[in-house]
């Protein structure tokens, strides 16, 4: 290059320097080392330990909640309804809370539950002289087969699928039939807080395997009460034998009303928007859709009424998240927060509030989009409505959420 001007310009600028842009190195570093080492280091053994402890706790609680609380759900009640009192079999069963309140009115007696399915067979076996009176009722003979209990072929089966459960008037009517009677002895005999350990264990074992469905049974069964399926420690049984056996009129026992409520595992789908707060923390919100299904079977005499209750909820969750581990294609995190839900397919007016804690695994589909599965625990507050749902029967329950998440960076 024989150009004095250009040569001198080149020489002049040969070692010229300008300040590099601010933050350039950190950008370069992030590009050259895409996997942030500090984040890996942050996932120290104690976090693994706490994650493992949380998982164990979750499994224990899930097992516990899957096996229904006998005190609340396994209410076996006696309602010596005469056939003429004509309990409408189309009515829905009482909620356990209402049953509990009925107990105070001395109409319904909780009895110590046994393992599912045996509940009703025990009195038949232990008091043979009463089998004759029970024989006209086919469902009473369905021993030890809880799945068949309510649907013998000879029975008239009425099925309905109302979206909104019917008002539970039946129980009020039941309560009024015996206002004049003194059941105080049976009240005191009932030790519904003292559940047999073995029966509890067996329930847990049997229900823990059926994680997709929960079940609870409310029976109004005079035979069961009087013939020993209940707590044999019952003082009422021994102290007032005549009173105890009094309702064992065939006509009366024929009017037994049984309710079997099975809650299906809730299904929840969510669309979530996640914003990082700094460090491993982030906040997220979005929309969630939850489907609750319960099958409620009411048996009265030879009439079986089955209702399938379907409730759909739309909710807005707000959660705080903490990342435990992450790489290009997946992310493991903990999440906790609250949610407000509104029932959109029924007449439940009040909002349903809940608290949620979960551990989630997200698979990234792109830079900002991912799909996730979040097993966790949820606690639902009572919404004050009379409709019986899994949330009411088991406020603290296992919850699996599936969804898609948009992450803003």
């Amino acid at each position, binding site marked *: 290059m024989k150009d004095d001007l250009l040569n001198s*310009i080149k020489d*002049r600028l040969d070692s010229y320097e300008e300040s590099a*842009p601010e933050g350039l190195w950190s950008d*370069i570093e992030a590009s050259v080392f895409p996997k942030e080492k500090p984040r890996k280091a942050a996932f120290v053994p104690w976090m693994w330990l706490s994650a493992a402890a949380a998982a164990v706790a979750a499994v224990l609680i899930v097992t516990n909640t899957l096996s229904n609380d006998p005190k609340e759900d396994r209410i076996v009640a006696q309602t010596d309804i005469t056939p003429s009192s004509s309990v409408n079999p189309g009515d829905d069963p009482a909620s356990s809370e209402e049953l509990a309140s009925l107990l105070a009115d001395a109409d319904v007696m909780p009895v110590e539950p046994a393992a599912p399915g045996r509940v009703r067979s025990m009195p038949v076996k232990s008091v043979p002289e009463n089998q004759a009176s029970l024989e006209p009722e086919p469902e009473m003979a369905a021993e030890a087969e809880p799945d068949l209990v309510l649907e013998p072929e000879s029975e008239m089966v009425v099925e309905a699928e109302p979206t909104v459960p019917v008002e539970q008037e039946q129980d009020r009517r039941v309560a009024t039939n015996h206002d004049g009677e003194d059941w105080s002895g049976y009240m005191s005999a009932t030790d519904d807080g003292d559940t047999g350990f073995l029966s509890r264990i067996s329930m847990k074992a049997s229900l823990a395997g059926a994680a997709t469905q929960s079940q609870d049974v409310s029976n109004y069964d005079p035979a069961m009460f009087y013939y020993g399926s209940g707590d044999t420690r019952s003082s009422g049984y021994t102290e007032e034998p005549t009173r105890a056996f009094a309702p064992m009129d065939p006509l009366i026992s024929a009017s037994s009303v049984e309710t079997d409520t099975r809650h299906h595992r809730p299904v929840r789908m969510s669309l979530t928007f996640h914003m990082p707060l700094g460090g491993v923390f982030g906040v997220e919100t979005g929309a969630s859709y939850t489907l609750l299904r319960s099958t409620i079977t009411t048996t009265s005499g030879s009439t079986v009424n089955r209702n399938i209750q379907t409730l759909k909820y739309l909710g807005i969750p707000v959660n705080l998240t903490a990342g435990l581990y992450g790489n290009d294609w997946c992310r493991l995190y903990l999440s906790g927060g609250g949610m407000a839900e509104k029932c959109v397919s029924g007449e439940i007016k009040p909002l349903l509030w809940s608290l949620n804690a979960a551990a989630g695994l997200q698979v990234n589909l792109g830079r900002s989009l991912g799909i996730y599965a979040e097993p966790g625990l949820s606690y639902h507050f009572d919404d004050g409505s009379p409709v019986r749902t899994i949330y009411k029967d088991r406020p603290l329950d296992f919850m699996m959420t599936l969804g898609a998440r948009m992450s803003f960076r």
Partner: protein
Amino acid sequence: MGVLAEDIERKIVERARNGDRSAMKQIYDCYANYLTATCSRYLPDKGELRDVLQDSFVNIFSSLDKFTYRGEGSLKAWMRQISVNEALKKIRKRKSRNTLEYKWDLPELENEEEPDVGDIPARVIQEMIQELPEGYRTVLNLYAFEEKSHKEISELLGITESTSASQLHRARNLLAKRINDYKKKTEKR
């Protein structure tokens, strides 16, 4: 800043080649400002400059195994080559999106008196080059600083050799005029 002693530089390159983050940081600290000055003569726009510098360093660190150390200054020259290539890539990309902008010609200037740049601060000359129209600036940079021939420039920029020569001539005249203007202005003070 500046140039590292040969032995040290050789070792640092070796460490950086093995993925040593601190060695890469040392190389960056040593040459980032120099490459910033080089690239900003091609791309005065701060945003584009930053993009090009980032791409250049990522490219440099990921290509270290292709680099052969040939004594003092060889690393600097190699890094400079990579960053100029990145700058040209950016310019070509922009041109392909907006071809109209590639109209470089300005009215022919009268031949300027040959100026003396001896006492003009380097920063002022740098700014004068940055203020040239992009076409002039690119050809002048490649010709004067990268010592490319018009043939090479024509291939790099996708223009003819005569266009390259014409652009250089105009760029040189424009620069000479600005230098003379600057000198007149400073002499008056």
